[in-house]
């Protein structure tokens, strides 16, 4: 038990250390790109430009800025956006993230359940029509970029057939198309990965042992095969979850969804320093957290991994 606790605490401390490195690196990289939030297309008079920079503390020496900025991270109060002065960064995250997270969760559930189901069926019926159909779908899912998928879905299902709303956000039906477009690629990837793992696992001796014990095919697949076949998915799912839960710029743009994804891109083209830092810190926490959880789960699912390392 104490061993486990040490393992856990060790992982947790490296997590915080990496977070600190990410936060610092982002700060310095961000300052290294030319331009500033007030360098607009219509040039401001130099005096006003300088006064603005002065006001927002952009003229301070770097260590003061860096220090202030670390304080904002620790107190979790990132201050106002430079570009949209009536909004604070906390506001942006608090309003955008729930939207992106709900949509992302829907897409994640769809990708995981659909992918695992397709992959398992394909493996069990290898080289039969079920396999070919599933793998054809997977190949399409991988090769069609999400924005083309989204536009096609919008055109056929909404405009032509009128079954689902074209865009916007609020009701469940409005979330179906974006969730499907978001899920298509990971679903296809998961299906392919599951298929090849399942094929390998089904040839292992312990499956034969389970068969000779007279277990039903269903029990063998769900209790013995899937558990091992899904292990290689874990490292991918952590990263996938972080990406999909924090929103996608493209999908949000196409379906006019007020999520968080657009801010990752807009903030950088606007050089909106506070928003860049806020979104980056937020994203890294979710990413590192997801990877951390997946690592722990991985160890739980396959105890040999922690034992012998």
């Amino acid at each position: 038990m104490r061993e486990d606790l040490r393992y856990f605490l060790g992982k947790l401390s490296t997590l915080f250390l990496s977070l600190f490195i990410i936060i610092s690196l982002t700060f310095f990289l961000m300052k290294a790109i030319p331009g500033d939030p007030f360098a607009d297309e219509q040039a401001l008079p130099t005096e006003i430009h300088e006064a603005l920079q002065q006001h927002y503390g952009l003229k301070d020496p770097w260590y003061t800025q860096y220090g202030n900025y670390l304080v904002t991270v620790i107190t979790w109060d990132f201050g106002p956006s430079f570009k949209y002065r009536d909004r604070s960064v906390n506001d942006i995250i608090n309003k955008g993230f729930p939207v992106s997270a709900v949509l992302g969760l829907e897409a994640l559930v769809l990708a995981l359940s659909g992918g695992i189901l397709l992959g398992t069926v394909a493996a069990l019926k290898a080289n039969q029509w079920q396999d070919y159909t599933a793998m054809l779908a997977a190949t399409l899912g991988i090769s069609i970029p999400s924005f083309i998928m989204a536009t096609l879905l919008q055109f056929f299902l909404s405009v032509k057939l009128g079954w689902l709303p074209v865009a916007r956000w609020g009701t469940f039906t409005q979330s179906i198309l974006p969730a499907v477009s978001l899920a298509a690629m990971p679903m296809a990837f998961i299906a392919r990965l599951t298929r090849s793992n399942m094929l390998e696992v089904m040839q292992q001796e312990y499956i034969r042992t389970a068969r000779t014990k007279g277990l039903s095919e269903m029990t063998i697949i769900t209790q013995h095969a899937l558990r091992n076949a899904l292990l290689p998915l874990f490292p991918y799912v952590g990263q996938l979850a972080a990406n999909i839960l924090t929103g996608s710029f493209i999908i949000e743009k196409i379906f006019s969804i007020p999520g968080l994804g657009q801010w990752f891109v807009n903030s950088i083209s606007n050089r909106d320093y506070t928003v860049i830092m806020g979104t980056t810190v937020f994203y890294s926490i979710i990413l590192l957290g997801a990877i951390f959880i997946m690592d722990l789960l991985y160890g739980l699912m396959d105890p040999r991994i922690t034992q012998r390392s």
Partner: protein
Amino acid sequence: MQTFPEELFLPAELELHHEEVIAPSYSFWKEIWNNFKQRRVAAVGLVVLVLLSIMAVIGPYLTPYTYYDINLPLKNQPPSTMFWFGSDDLGRDIFTRVWYGARISLFIGIAAALIDLALGAIWGGTAALIGGKTDEIMMRFADILYSLPYLIVVTLLMMIMGPGLLTILAAMTIIGWITMARIVRGQVLHLKQQEYVLAAQALGASLPRILFRHLLPNARPHHGNADAHHSLSHICRSLPKLHGAGNTSPNSQLGNDGS
């Protein structure tokens, strides 16, 4: 008293046939080729890829147009005998531009997939095999790199390297290999528990040998997957993000024209 000949006291000669714990060298590539022949889907894929490559080479010469000549009176034409794929908003022939763009996309797609695969397999494999602190440090390094805002990294790359093909390639691979590294690491963590790895260790095989001879070949099926995933997503990629990262204006690239 019996005398022994002097030779008996010399050190015995080493027997020079060591036992090798590897598959008979009916080689990696032969195995891949055999595998490949059995899969019709893969064969179809290869044919398509070859056709695309041929067209990328000869396609732009099949029309009287260049990919950059602007012809404003004939803008936004539908496909016709004159413009096989129609013309774009500046009156440039889309057929010519598609194949010209395919050159860039194919090159970047294949090169990026290979770099991702190589870097990812080595990084993830080494991390998993050595384990412990090394693993922790290597993977956290990958996480850190992956967390940095992509656009900032790309902008900085552009500042340092200037716009160009190599910059696009660098921008694609600088983050791309990390997913591969995570997947390979998961695989190797799982595989290294197998008895044959213990056997190889007991026989004194070095870490690189265990990694390259014993572990990575076994992680192969999943490589194949991820590899296909990568190259395809690179080739058919949607890169509004990278607009202009090296593609200075008259050049076409599939990602640009598609969006």
